[in-house]
């Protein structure tokens, strides 16, 4: 089945014991779109993303990612997605170069391809001088950019970014978002969560999640019109603060 949707979610739920973390959410993400997955703390964003990446089994519901079912085809999904988790997930006792080589390796890239990609990434990220330093000692903004780049090594068509810029300063955040724009303009789909509402403005569409449900979804411009507000920050506080 060929669709235009990179991600398509239908009545997806996840329970932890009696607690319902994700409650029958349904939405679609178009190919090549930057989709902002916003929401209050504990709304269920990370839980939903983990289900889409095949890290958690849904309690009920269905979703397809890159055309494959998250219930039955996780192995195929994993080949087609990149994922950057909320927790920093590179090895901090490995150097920049070793991290890139390792992640290239576990995606089964050939040796030549890995060494080519490594050089390319290191020069793109301006990390030439740092390539042999331990990842531990990089500034946070650089770490996050490195993590983003390694999750793109295998050229996935969709990339899930869970709060990639948490704690990052405004200048590094801009650099980071410039890369996100470049990724999207090369046709990849970007699925991103953030608590910085200025970043929400960069998204093609955003959804706002609260207590396990998606309570709003649309383009930033449409939402501003609908709520008669000028910034996403005001909209978010309005919607989430009320509920």
């Amino acid at each position, binding site marked *: 089945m060929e669709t235009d949707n990179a991600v398509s979610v239908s009545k997806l739920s996840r329970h932890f014991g009696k607690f319902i973390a994700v409650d029958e959410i349904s939405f679609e993400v178009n190919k090549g779109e930057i989709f902002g997955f916003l929401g209050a703390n504990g709304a269920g964003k990370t839980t939903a993303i983990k289900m889409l990446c095949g*890290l*958690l089994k849904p309690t009920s519901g269905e979703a397809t990612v890159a055309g494959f079912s998250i219930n039955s085809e996780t192995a195929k999904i994993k080949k087609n997605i990149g994922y950057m988790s909320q927790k920093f997930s590179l090895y901090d006792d490995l150097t920049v170069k070793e991290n890139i080589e390792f992640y290239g*390796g576990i995606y089964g890239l050939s040796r030549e391809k890995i060494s080519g990609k490594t050089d390319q990434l290191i020069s793109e990220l301006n990390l030439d001088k740092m390539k042999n330093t331990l990842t531990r000692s990089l500034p946070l903004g650089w770490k996050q950019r490195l993590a983003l780049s390694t999750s793109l090594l295998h050229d996935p068509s969709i990339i899930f970014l869970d709060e990639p810029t948490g704690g990052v300063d405004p200048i590094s955040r801009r650099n980071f978002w410039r890369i996100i724009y470049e990724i999207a303009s090369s046709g990849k789909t970007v699925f991103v969560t953030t608590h910085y509402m200025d970043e929400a403005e960069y998204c093609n569409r955003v959804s706002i999640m609260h207590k396990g449900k998606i309570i709003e979804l649309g383009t930033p411009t449409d939402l501003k019109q609908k709520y008669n507000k000028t910034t996403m920050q005001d909209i978010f506080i309005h919607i989430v603060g009320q509920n």
Partner: protein
Amino acid sequence: MKLRRTISIIIKEYTHIFRDWRSLLIIILMPVLMIILYGYAITLDMKNLTFAVIDDSKTPESRELIRGFTENRFFILRYTGIKRNEIESLFKKRDIQMALVIPGDFSESLISKRITKVQLIVDAADSNVGTFINNYSNRVAQLFNEKLNHRSPGILGLEPRILYNPDMKSANFFVPGLVALILLLICSLLTSITITREKETGTLEQILVSPVHPIEIVVGKVVPYITLGFFNGIIIIIFARLLFKVPINGSLSLIAVLSLIYIFVALSFGLMISAVAKTQQIAMLATLMATVLPTIMLSGFIFPIASMPLPLQYISKVVPATYFLIIIRGIMLKGIGLAELWQHAAALSGIGLFMLSIATIRFKTTLE
């Protein structure tokens, strides 16, 4: 299983190992320290056993038997010519660990070739020591018999293990067991924390979203630690040889090959725990519990398996150290070879493969 992915995991694990040289040093020094401490602690214990004698016979034969006990370095004769009712209080004060009561008709009975009974009272509060005294006394009795009459099979049954330890050195008996214990402990600890550590740091999550198969992770983690474990094993055996003068009568390369199998079992065991445990602490505790006690109690390290209750004997069949002890004692002390040991080696390999499969199957590709 894809080789490329497995290799990159192997390379990464090696990098972790060598980068953290402090931990590496601990991993290498800990077994050495353990073998020195435990080795000396046990052999010292066994050297200073004191005993009392009540000799009602007072004949050359009875004195000969007493000399049999005092000749070696393990028994020190502390009391002679005491009364029977004093014995109990000496035991209570822990003044003696053993008392020998030679009956008045000792010589006559021997000369008339009747079965002669000598009473041996052993303090078994420390069962370790108790077993030991029992074994050595049997040996003393056997020697005594041989001197008296070469054709006689002796008065008491003998613990066969001592046959191969004719010098009566406890080190020969214990050190191979220690090698088995330490190797198992270190190797399974090593792997039991590698996966849980990645669960805690969050890197496992990143690996799990890639197409990596559990078998690749598991193999990628076993291989580097096999070399490390092997290196550890060599060091332990060298120290055993140098410090405790344990003989190595058999083939060194056979020891090496069979140790490799044992190390593989230990590492697979650690991985099995690691695949299920949520945190590093749980993994470490579980490993300690599951290795140390069974190895000490059920493998024949201290207690002969043949004298255990039947259910325990069955359990001992799944304790890896049981097989390795037979192997290592066999090679070091008896000098036997693969012809006699292949079954045990096969049993070990089987246990190892079984554990590795369990580790792979139980290894979850999700974060539940």
